[in-house]
């Protein structure tokens, strides 16, 4: 995988915004400081990932899950993050559930539509069957042979 070094950095504009929102109004943040914080954030992601991955491997899982990340935060001594993280996760999951329900509903509506259409054809087929039963038994014998095959 050819990843250029810049790709492992986080977007400067967003980092700057987060810094500004965290500090009191009017604090002057040097360009160097901003760049350093951005790099620190990338290192944080790597450290957190590696730590979370250890928990996953211990549990013999190949997929990192939410529990692993939370355990990593504790391990890294960022317990202060745990409560806000859990709250944010709740909001996120509800949002995901809502999206899922919307697409589920769309799917159900689609099915309903095609059900109505197939009901029509079924009615037509039933009428056909009734007509067929009135015909001689020879037809039925043929059908039985097919079943045996």
């Amino acid at each position, binding site marked *: 995988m050819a990843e250029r070094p810049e790709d492992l950095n986080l977007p400067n504009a967003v980092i700057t915004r*987060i810094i500004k929102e965290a500090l009191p109004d009017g604090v*002057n*943040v040097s360009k160097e400081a901003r760049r350093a914080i951005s790099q620190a*954030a990338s290192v944080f992601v790597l450290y957190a*990932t590696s730590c979370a991955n250890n928990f996953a491997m211990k549990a013999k899982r190949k997929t990192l899950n*939410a529990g692993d*990340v939370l355990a990593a935060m504790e391990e890294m001594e960022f317990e202060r993050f745990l409560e806000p993280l859990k709250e944010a996760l709740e909001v996120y999951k509800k949002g*995901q559930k809502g999206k899922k329900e919307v697409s589920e509903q769309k799917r159900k509506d689609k099915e309903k539509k095609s059900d109505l259409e197939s009901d029509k054809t079924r009615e037509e087929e039933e009428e056909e069957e009734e007509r067929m039963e009135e015909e001689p038994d020879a037809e039925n014998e043929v059908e039985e042979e097919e079943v045996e095959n």
Partner: protein
Amino acid sequence: MVNLKNKIEQSNKKNISLPISRVRLIMKSSPDVSSINQDALFLTTKATELFVQHLAVSSFNNGSGKETNSLSYSDLANTAEETETFHFLTDILPKKILARDYLKSLEQMQEEEADY
């Protein structure tokens, strides 16, 4: 300080700003990581934002910037060295010294050795 807390809480309410796709890219570059579930991805992204806030605020409070109302690189480097939870950053946030100060301390060391 109360205002600061409210500010941070407010920004936390509108879920996340950092792009999940970029965070995922960084996570995948870590060796031995096979796959990452959606919730874990979200949590890591959110945690990174909290980390940026925490590093900025800690460095600002810890540093001399409060008088000058600024945050400089050296505030960050000092915080990385002085605060345990930020020790993992000391390699990428090394303290800087002026070249002439470094040469001076080199000279001093050489003089001390000559005395033995």
